[in-house]
């Protein structure tokens, strides 16, 4: 029997231990380096006809998968086969396939986006797996992300959180010269690191409370670190948190699972910043 992973479920320690238990490598090179190989795999995939119906796991055997394929290309191969067999292919969200649009969203072997560190599902390659592996694939699971079909969920809640205040109110045409306000490089870099969030929702999927706090914090940090974002600083954080609660996301209990699985390595220091902003905004509110 493998040892039970240490640490609280969902924490980064837990994931590290869990990864060891499944012998999952964080390096894109896997443990086989450049060597190309083919493998046969067993997939257990969540199938659900639509939001109303009940879902279930289906098992599929896939053969001759090349280690050079991406994870989604392996799904392409399976779907082509299902179409030829007259069955319905598995519905999943994907678009850019280069790790930036944030569309892909598979929960692979108990981890959002699968075993590799800082990697989206579309950038996960089959080198991460070995011949004979069983891979379990589920959709994001969170009350605020209802399943639409199979592995596709509705992440409209994220758009509505941005609508609540995730912007700087500047109409086209009213801007001053780009170099009129110098911004300390350190703050500009921090703002960029937070703004790199792709809105995929892995943080919510990993969180035992289904909290969206890392997503909200990244946006609050991005905009409050810049002088342009300063005028709306207080109203922004209050409104975004209010919307997050309204959408049915849970509260943050700081297990740090979100950071461990974030494909863009958004730091939880953003959550600390958000809490500071939130407290300050609440204390300083005139209303």
């Amino acid at each position, binding site marked *: 029997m493998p040892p039970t992973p240490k640490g609280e479920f969902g924490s980064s320690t837990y994931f590290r231990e869990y990864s060891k238990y499944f012998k999952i490598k964080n390096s894109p090179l896997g443990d086989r380096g450049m060597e190309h190989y083919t493998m046969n795999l067993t997939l257990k995939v969540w199938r659900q006809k639509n939001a109303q119906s009940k879902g279930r796991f289906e098992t599929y055997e896939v053969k001759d998968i090349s280690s050079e394929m991406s994870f989604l290309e392996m799904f392409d191969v399976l779907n082509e086969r299902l179409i030829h067999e007259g069955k319905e292919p598995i519905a999943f969200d994907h*678009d850019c396939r280069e790790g930036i*649009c*944030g569309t892909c969203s598979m929960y692979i072997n108990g981890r959002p986006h699968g075993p590799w560190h800082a990697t989206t599902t579309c950038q996960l390659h089959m080198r991460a797996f070995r011949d004979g592996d069983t891979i379990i694939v589920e959709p994001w699971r969170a009350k605020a992300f209802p399943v639409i079909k199979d592995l596709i969920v509705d992440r409209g809640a994220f758009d509505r959180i941005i609508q609540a205040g995730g*912007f700087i109110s500047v109409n086209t045409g009213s801007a001053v010269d*780009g170099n009129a306000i110098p911004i300390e490089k350190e703050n500009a870099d921090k703002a960029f690191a937070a703004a790199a969030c792709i809105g995929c929702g892995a943080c919510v999927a990993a969180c035992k409370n289904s909290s969206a706090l890392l997503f909200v914090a990244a946006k609050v940090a991005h905009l409050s670190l810049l002088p342009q974002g300063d005028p709306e600083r207080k109203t922004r954080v209050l409104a975004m948190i209010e919307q997050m609660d309204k959408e049915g996301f849970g509260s943050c209990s700081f297990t740090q699972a979100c950071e461990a699985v974030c494909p863009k390595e958004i730091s939880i220091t953003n959550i600390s910043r958000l809490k500071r902003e939130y407290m300050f905004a609440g204390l300083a509110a005139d209303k």
Partner: protein
Amino acid sequence: MLDSKIPEGPLNEKWTNYKGHCKLVNPANKRRMEIIVVGTGLAGASAAASLGELGYNVKAFCFQDSPRRAHSIAAQGGINAAKNYQNDGDSVYRLFYDTIKGGDYRSREGNVHRLAEVSVNIIDQCVAQGVPFAREYSGLLSNRSFGGTQVQRTFYAAGQTGQQLLIGAYQALERQAALGNVKMYSRHEMLDIVNIDGKCRGIIVRNLVSGKLERYSGHAVVLCTGGYGNVFYLSTNAMGCNVTAIWKAHKQGAYFGNPCFTQIHPTCIPVTGDHQSKLTLMSESLRNDGRIWVPQKQGDTRKANEIPEEERDYYLERRYPAFGNLVPRDVASRAAKERCDAGYGVGTSKQAVYLDYADAISRYGKIECGKLQIENPTAEEIRHHGIEVVKEKYGNLFDMYEKITGENPYQVPMRIYPAVHYTMGGLWVDYELMSNVKGLYVLGEANFSDHGANRLGASALMQGLADGYFVIPYTIGNYLADEIRNAIVSTTHEAFNESEKKVSDRINQLMNIKGSQSVESFHKRLGKIMWEKCGMARNAQGLQEAITEIKGLKEEFWRDVRIPGEINELNPELDKAQRVADFIELGELICIDALNRNESAGGHFREEYQTPDGEALRQDDQYMYVAAWEYKSDHEWELHKEELKYEEVKPSQRSYK
């Protein structure tokens, strides 16, 4: 001859004059006007946000699950603007000139000059929105170089500039959505436009979740639906990128401009096998510091690091000493193909060249050691500090390369090969960005207007945002001012009934074929024909063959495609089938256009027309025009021409030597 409606007057006063004289719509009337925007990339999101800010009622549509996912998000390198912050001789005129020359003298002077003029406002607007551009320690904006220029005018945010700009525009869009000025429809795909009395009055869309058709009516329709590079199957475009919206408009009367002007990007990760679903770009910014080479010996099987310096051929630096590794994309792509075809390619497929960072690592390492006052640094120390610098500049690109190929690009040179990336062609538009169908506007990559036969790097983001933030808010008013007396057309109008029935019939027809071959397999076959016969090099015979093969493919598709599932549900295979059906028709038109253009210009390289040293040879006396194709019937198009007049620039053979 088509009228581009370029305003009178000297080149640098045209846009100012236009803005001073175009008609306006007063605020009370704006509140009564409805505008439909399709697509939410840089052009669409910026247009929808800006029009919403002006007080128009905007409905915005995208097929993705959120407007933030549009493919502009994947643009890596940067955005050009004639700010001249570097004091290195840049100006609006120079950006204009570089773009005209880079486009191989096949774009309009008036449009390009306007683009260069508003480029400076784009940077200001984006900074005000909170776009975190790269900065120097002074706190001021940083710049780098891109292909086809000798100044540093590219603004960037690491290798994620498109993402940051799109999020800026997306946030502006969501702000208008919260204010009620924009109504957003995600997971909706446009399947037709509705024209009434010669004016575009609405669209038919399919709700991709329920599968139901829906009707929307407006005073004007703005298409910002991107390029059609996926006609080649493998490209750097996202999986969902498609031609459907502009193709439907084309079949309803909008002319298609220069469809054969497609861009092949020189630095992409090579194909590894049949399973390949898309290709990944390595940003052009990598050519700032990386050096491109192949072995001097044909069929050299040694590893890159085992080939000594004197046995390497830095062919771009050899052939084009003035611009070196920073020649424009079309030139760099052809040069790579030439070397590989001649047997100098590297890697297992031999269809690749090296992009090497060893020199840059050593150069930056020495500078850093100097800064740190390390006396007589060891090679190891230099390397260490050099890698740190390269990591900061290009870290995310190097990581991506490693994930995809399993090779560490800090240790071994990257292998790259050209891939389809961008389409300069698109729906024909006039100076106001209106197509020949009244009330139908086309913005961004979806139109044909600004890049001629070849787009320069970091200019796509510039054009998308210029069109959306700074052009359409003026030009659309000039049309809507005459529409204020016209109430919105009801969606129960006969034209909407007919249009919806047509869309519905086509979907039913597709679903009822119940053939044996998957949509994907047809798309792959189309891509193969296009890449082999209408790709980096084209000739009359190949193009004629391609046209015949595509006709056959179309017939086979409509006889034997298999689409699983139902109509009234989320059905990605049905979505894809409709897109591929349109790609097949477009493929034929691209080949017809390429066959018609008996010259080489920019990305369109006809083997019959080249200089003795293999450079593109234009035929200015015969082809100094925009080819605007009118759809007549199946397999039949009529050519209309818009003559290109050069008043400011003298067209010459492009030289980067």
